[in-house]
């Protein structure tokens, strides 16, 4: 049994070493959800990751003088993947919430986005979260494992029909196909879609009120034991904001300040 274990571990080690680029401590791996989340993180047609969050990551890494690497992950299961050490920092527009803080730690927030429900301009119904009857019988799309999904489930379970999607653009595909009446999304992020020609037919119907479950803005997710990394990232984030680099990056993609207070 011991011999087999040794053989297996040699194989594993060769696998690990041959493919690993993370043996060294100074490479920090940033987990980004492998879906287009314009304008924060999108893979363009040349295969490179682009976007506000990517630029911020580069700026932060420059401050920390560390080598950074992007690891593609599925959004669904991104927290367990972090805990399983597939990468070191979740850097994918994840909201800092108390629920999540029970399991992982966060850097300081790097932007804040209210949550919204988007619908077709031709849909003249009025929706009011204070009046659940306005949601009766409609279908809402939300990304699985997202806060908006939790919100819809908790508040409107049994009133409206909730459809869960693995990625945001699956939601967009279906609202364009008319399969859902409303789409839950992050307000700042969805502007990118609304500004595009195909998004012209849609508008924000409801801005969800700020609930405590929505948390305090979006930040980088870390394992609880990585306190040193957290301090380095926070220091770098502060530096990036102080030096004005944050605003430079933001101006590239947005017309407004997304930091919030």
């Amino acid at each position, binding site marked *: 049994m011991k011999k087999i274990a040794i053989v297996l571990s040699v194989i594993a080690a060769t696998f690990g070493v041959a493919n690993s*680029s993370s043996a060294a401590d100074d490479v920090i791996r940033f987990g980004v959800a*492998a879906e287009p989340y314009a304008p924060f993180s999108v893979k363009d*047609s040349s295969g490179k990751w682009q976007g506000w969050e990517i630029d911020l990551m580069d700026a932060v890494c420059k401050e920390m003088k560390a080598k950074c690497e992007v690891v593609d992950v599925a959004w669904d299961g991104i927290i367990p*993947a972090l805990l399983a050490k597939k990468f070191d920092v979740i850097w994918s527009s994840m909201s800092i919430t108390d629920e999540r803080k029970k399991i992982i730690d966060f850097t300081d927030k790097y932007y804040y986005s209210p949550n919204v429900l988007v619908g077709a301009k031709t849909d003249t119904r009025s929706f009011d979260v204070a009046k659940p009857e306005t949601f009766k019988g409609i279908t809402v799309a939300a990304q699985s494992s997202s806060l908006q999904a939790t919100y819809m489930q908790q508040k409107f379970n049994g009133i409206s029909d909730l459809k869960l999607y693995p990625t945001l653009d699956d939601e967009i595909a279906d609202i364009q196909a008319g399969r859902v009446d409303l789409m839950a999304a992050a307000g700042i992020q969805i502007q990118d879609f609304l500004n595009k020609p195909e998004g012209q037919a849609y508008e924000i119907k409801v801005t969800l009120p700020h609930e405590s479950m929505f948390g305090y803005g979006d930040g980088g997710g870390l394992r609880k034991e990585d306190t040193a990394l957290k301090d380095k990232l926070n220091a770098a984030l502060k530096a990036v904001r102080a030096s004005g680099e944050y605003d430079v990056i933001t101006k590239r993609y947005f017309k407004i300040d997304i930091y919030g207070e």
Partner: protein
Amino acid sequence: MAWLNLLSFGDQGWSDELLQGAWLSIEISLCAYLTGLVLGLFGAIAKLSKSVVARSVASGYTTVIRSVPDILVIFLIYYSATDALSYLISMTGLSVQFQLNGFVAAAISLGVVQGGYSTEVLRGAIVAVARGQTEAALAVGLTRKQTFFLVIIPQMLPLALPGLGNLWLIVLKESSLVSLIGFTELVLVGKMAAGATRHYLLFYAAIGVVFLVMSGVSSLVFHYFEVKASHAWRRK
């Protein structure tokens, strides 16, 4: 014809990313296939062994793979692979702290599923080699181990080829599942392209075509080997 532009190579088109994704699919399929064969060999031997423990473990393994959806097994293994391997290694007394990178974790997950299917194929092939061969080999004085490697395996290979070919086609298609754990192989690349450009039918159909091509080429290759093998083992 915006389509053609989208499908072109180079910076504007997604074809190079699709092909890179396809190549990654092939790489991960290959690793999973080999891992699966190794596990399958162990499994087949265990199933045919005299030890009740070995038989039950192997039987449990194949039953689980057979009844539980592959994606579920892949999720479970993907999240626990690092811990499990660390545990295995700690059994040898080494205390190495290491981390599996995404490719290896995905390959192992897929390989474990493949092993379940491979066990049955290999077992069938081993059993198909005439019992007389084992008896004759033992009578001539070969040890069990020598019998296995020098007599059974060479004869089992041509018999197993159709099954092995089938296993390869299965793993090629199963590799699409690792897109659901975020591994950027062909399906996920296509999905991202479709999402970024909103041309869903185009890219998903393109992915389908690439799979068809890969399956087709693989079938031809295996057919070639089957023909060669049947020549080599023609009864005199």
